[in-house]
């Protein structure tokens, strides 16, 4: 459980970080809660780590033009305990509080989680449900992408080599919106066997699902059924339909599909009860 050797840099500016990343097999280090375990298992062996923890401007939560800008290096604990987020984007705060354990939440970052695209990670479900965007910086430029376009597949995102995810943008929830994140835990690791984020507003619903398949997804068919019928059970039952479900020693594909429907109903009901 010891990594291979590598070089380490802790740049003090974003430009410096981007420059360091440009060369060779460098990798960004954020909270390290996913990357370091992989390096210790020697599943990842970057030649250089570029630690973003000392780059100013990558942390913190700021409101601007009806949206909340969350720095990529904002930790899960900061999201979970942020008064602003609790009031204005409670789904994100609730989801953050369901991640791992205290120590993991103290280190792990929202940018790291988004960039890592672990199929059992919690944030992606919520980020899809709130229709988040991500900002990506590269040498000499920046782009903004919908999170749904950013997330491509298992451990795969739209990040180009040399690019850094600098922040996540989520809309301020309108009054009357109701949200909920429901997660069944894998008892050993604490990751999601299945996690469902639901957000309802004015009778329309958005459902983000994680853990069920190779990547987190919006349950579009279920959302549509709900819009048409307002029937929670029917909508929830549609969540796993047609999904190629993961299967491992902790849960078979069938069970995961079943739990996804059950947890979707729970998330929908909880969100509805909080909505007005």
């Amino acid at each position, binding site marked *: 459980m010891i990594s291979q050797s590598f070089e380490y840099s802790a740049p003090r500016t974003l430009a410096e970080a981007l420059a360091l990343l440009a060369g060779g097999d460098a990798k960004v280090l954020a909270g390290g809660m996913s990357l370091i375990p992989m390096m210790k298992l020697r599943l990842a062996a970057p030649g250089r780590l570029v630690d973003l923890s000392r780059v100013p401007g990558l942390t913190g939560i700021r409101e601007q033009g009806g949206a909340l800008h969350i720095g990529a290096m904002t930790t899960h604990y900061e999201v979970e305990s942020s008064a602003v987020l609790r009031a204005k984007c409670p789904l994100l705060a609730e989801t953050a509080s369901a991640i791992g354990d205290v120590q993991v939440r103290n280190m792990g970052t929202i940018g790291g989680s988004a960039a890592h695209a672990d199929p059992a990670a919690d944030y992606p479900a919520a980020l899809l449900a709130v229709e988040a965007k991500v900002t990506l910086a590269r040498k000499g430029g920046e782009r903004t992408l919908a999170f749904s376009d950013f997330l491509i597949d298992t451990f795969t995102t739209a990040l180009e080599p040399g690019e850094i995810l600098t922040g996540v943008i989520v809309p301020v929830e309108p009054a009357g919106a109701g949200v909920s994140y429901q997660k*069944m835990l894998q008892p050993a690791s604490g990751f999601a066997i299945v996690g469902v984020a639901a957000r309802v507003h004015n009778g329309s619903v958005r459902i983000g699902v994680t853990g069920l398949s190779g990547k987190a997804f919006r349950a579009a068919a279920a959302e549509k059924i709900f819009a048409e019928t307002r029937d929670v059970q029917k909508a929830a039952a549609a969540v796993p339909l047609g999904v190629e479900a993961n299967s491992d*020693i*902790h849960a078979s594909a069938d069970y995961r599909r079943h739990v996804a429907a059950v947890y979707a109903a729970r998330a929908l009901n909880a969100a509805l009860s909080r909505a007005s």
Partner: protein
Amino acid sequence: MATTITKPDTLVGKRIKRKEDPRLITGTATYVDDIQMPGMHHACILRSPHAAARIRSINTHAAAGHPGVVAVFTGADVAGVGPVPCGASLPGLRVPHHSILAKDRVYFVGHPVAVVVARDRYIATDALDLIEVDYDVLPAVADPEKALAPGAPAVHPEWPDNIAFTYHQEGGEPDKAFAEAEVVVKQRITSQRLIPTAMETRGVVAEHRAGQLTIWSSTQIPHLMRTLVAMMLGVPENLLRVVTPEVGGGFGSKLNVYAEEALMGFVAMKIGKPVKWIESRRENYLCTIHGRGHVDYYEIAARKDGTVLGLKLKLIQDLGAYHQLLTPAIPTLSVLMMPGLYRFRNVSADIIGAFTNCVPTDAYRGAGRPEATHGVERMMDLLAVELKADPAEIRLKNFIGADEFPYATATGLSYDSGDYAKPLKKALDIVDYHHLRQEQARAKAAGRLMGVGLSTYGEICAFGPSPATPAGGWESATVKVEPTGKVTVMTGASPHGQGEETTFAQIAADELGVTMDDVTVIHGDTAVVQYGIGTFGSRGTAVGGPALYFAIQELKKKIVKFGAMLLDSDDVSFSGGLCVCNKSGKTVPLAAIAGASYRAMKLPAGEQPGMMATYFWEPPNFAFPFGAHIAVTEIDRDTGQVAIKRYVAVDDCGKIINPLLVDGQVHGGVVQGIGQALYEQAVYDDNGQLLTGELTDYAIPKASMVPWIESSHTETPSPVNPLGVKGVGEAGTIGCSPAVVNSVVDALSHLGVRHIDMPLTPERIWKLISAGGRA
């Protein structure tokens, strides 16, 4: 037999906080990995990635040349080292040669193949990647029933049937009992493979200096280890010292002599430098013993009125690829305890020990008894269901009576003392059984799945009379009063978390009339402490305690003699730390007596100077704690998740020396039982790959996964020892799993569910609920 001592106002019996804690809560305790020595090197072990393979060749050239590496050894280098020992003997037992590094074949994933020794562990880890092993991969078998099937791959080619031994035991007239029975109930019941998971993995430091080899090992049995490692290495036992520093939990997994102790001894002698090996968690899961691994076929015979007549068991034990110290003996303990607390006069058991391409099984907390209790307690519930009887009633009806002790069981044991109805009735009162059943009926009527599960267990512990144990069942103690009056106790038991530094100090302080602070308890160093057996099988207090008690009685005789001399009286008694002349009332304190014994200006006739006594106590019998546990569960019918709503444990471990510590043992034991019931299982795939190879996949309970445990006691003293103690280290684990499983089966019984094998994962339960339809 001695009678039980009870004295008013003593330390024994009080909730006293532990003497060992200050070093542990400040981070200043020394575990094996905390040892640092000048010039110390680090060893890492290359292990087989295959469950069965021939080794065609090993190329260590690149690793040996890696900067910082001082040596690489393979099986060929250690050919002179004796095999890893098996201490158990059974008629006809097949014992494979278990060399400390693989020779030409590997038998399980994790089998040690080579060892790299380097300046530090980072370099040693890097060098492991440079060793090339050419394997010819062979078919493997990882399931004991599959291993016994015709045509299965042979784990050891010399024994193609994969049978290590068969064992038959019978008492009474089982066939007649079954022929005459009005009801017979049968069930296949498994106790899955578990990984002990002491939070500290194993570790060994070895140093060879000035002709003496010293081995520091995280073990429960330092003296036995010294003897066995001396034999493996061929070094004189009196030039080998084994030191057990702080041990971070054992639960049986450190009741063993593994390849690595001898291997590090070998390395230290070869390189002439101290060497350290610390097991990674993955190695711990792959190579340290597992527990349980039973497939049991039970049959119970009874009359219609619920009177039990007989019990039959066919037991298939998954042994793994080798025998560790006690591997084949563990299932025989299950057989001994199969009658549980009941009047089974007719029993028969057949064990088949099956080799598999897995790491060996051996003693894990409870060792054989949880399996037995799980079996008989499940069977009693199945019988109750069959007869539409109440599970509490059927137990009360068949208990051995409080007036029947000592009770000779059909398996040849003599239960020392008991009142089995007492804890059950107490537990039933605590949960308010009658109302609980009404509440359950209402819950079920409302469509909720609520269950009530009982388990009444007996366990054999305080191992034990020497003739019944492989390596001596006695324990030793030395007690010294130093010249200043301070008391030093040296115990041959080697506690590792159980708190004997405290309980033994309580005993010594009471007996010698000194304070707890005046007593120091030393253990775990073969150069300092007289030979001892160790701590396992709930014996630390139950066998080590009486040894200490008797050593003190010996010492007291000497104290009185010196006191008489100093008081110039022939009528002297000793109590409260003073010798008193019963005529004049004059006193002399212990410190003065001790001082005089060492100065030795004058000696009582026939006495030696000094104030020390040693006692090796041979217990006349085992002790048999018992108890009753009740679990109330509710099942989420949509997902199959089990919530334990209430957990009540009433345990009788004889006399209680420190209730705080006893509660701690019960809580810890119950939570390991819950782990087995709900979460834990070592999963091997068909190729013998361990799929639960890290704590990210093997779920031991976290704080949020277990309920509050309502623990209380009854106290039936054991007549086996003068302290009246029985032992409590394993009780919680033994009592727990059947309570939980019985509760969950009870919750689902109306859906037609009769039995569920552990662990009761949500998915397993959900499948049963789905199959049974929504009632």
